[in-house]
């Protein structure tokens, strides 16, 4: 048999040798070899850049500030955001507006004298990449709520 088909048996021996070597090589490495040094993530000294996925500008009649804030709270409740609307420490005219969720967040300012709210819509984690449709879906609801305020103007920039 061996003499009749030498090429077949050479191939078999090659693979058999390979298998035995693989097994012993693996065991040998696991017991005696040192793992390669792991490159540490170079932790940046400054936060990672986190550009806004959408920028929203809303203009309302300054007299309707409370209506705007109510709608912001309604939107936050609808999409389960933690929310902050508070005057800044430096000025009673400017309000900090921030909506925060584990995956996405909105942050910006409302200027009481001009009735302008500027918001950026971001991934909460700069490293994550939520599909843009997620932002647009939520913004549809946001636009509907804002449009309920008479004489309001809503615009989104990509």
């Amino acid at each position: 048999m061996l003499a009749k088909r030498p090429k077949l048996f050479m191939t078999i021996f090659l693979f058999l040798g390979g298998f035995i070597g693989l097994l012993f090589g693996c065991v040998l490495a696991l017991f005696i070899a040192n793992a390669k040094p792991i490159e540490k993530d170079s932790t940046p000294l400054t936060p990672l850049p986190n550009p806004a996925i959408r920028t929203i500008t809303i203009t309302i009649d300054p007299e309707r500030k409370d209506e705007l804030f109510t709608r912001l709270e309604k939107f936050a409740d609808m999409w389960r955001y933690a929310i902050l609307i508070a005057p800044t420490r430096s000025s009673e005219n400017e309000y900090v507006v921030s909506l925060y969720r584990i995956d996405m967040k909105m942050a910006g300012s409302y200027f009481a004298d001009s009735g302008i709210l500027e918001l950026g819509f971001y991934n909460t984690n700069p490293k994550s990449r939520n599909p843009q449709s997620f932002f647009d879906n939520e913004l549809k609801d946001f636009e509907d709520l804002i449009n309920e305020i008479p004489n309001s103007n809503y615009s989104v920039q990509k």
Partner: protein
Amino acid sequence: MLTKSTRLTMIGFLLLGIVLGLFVGYEGGIVVKTSVKEMLQNSKESAEKGLPIKSVTITIQAGQEELLFEQFRKFAQKNFFAIRITSFKPSSYDIEMWREDINIGGLFWIDTKTLSLSFHNNHFEQPVSQPISESVFDDLMNDLQTFISEVPSAITTERRHRLIITTTDNWRNEELLAQMKALAEKHSLKYEFSFYDSDPSDNRCLDVEIHGEGFHITTSDCERDTIEDFNIDFYLDYHKTPTATSEETLDKLFDELKSLLGNIDNATVVNEQP
């Protein structure tokens, strides 16, 4: 019958296979070993990242939860935290507060009227290389406490120390319990020992509590636990601020129990800062 040269060629092929296999197997083994090491390191890092910087428990009387939540809203507004309180009635309320540097999260259990709250670095926005100073957390905690103290029945429980006892196979927890009982008796403190279990007929877990004026010490263990570690936690309980006496007494008891437990065979006592 095989010729000599064919036989040698076959042996040569076998040896060639072994050499190639050894090389590939050895390299593969190193890759496996490196991957496992990397995985362990990553899981350790992410666990450390998620650890709270401060933890606190607040207990109130029935019917005062809305008052407590209102105080949280005021605290959030003052310190520029976005806040959300979500009801999961009838079991609990979820509380989350977010700011660019810090996030605070907790659960209020309706049946026990207890809220567990923890303060974390906001690791999404705060580089790990630049952790927030502990004094920022201290200031926030103090400020939160002033708001909480507006709720008449609120008792804040703050963990001050933790002893971790790492044991060997020969460990007997009776020795630990005996030392804790001796400590309680020596200082005339209330010592409570009870069994419990998720299955009431089983009762395989034990719970030990030592109560004093403005503090308590607690440990628990379940027979079926595979981890051979015990935690003994030292808590301060207060309404507005802890009294100097309770703080001093708790520190003394911590030192005393640590040295007592250090004398037990087969146990290593580690002090973990909260």
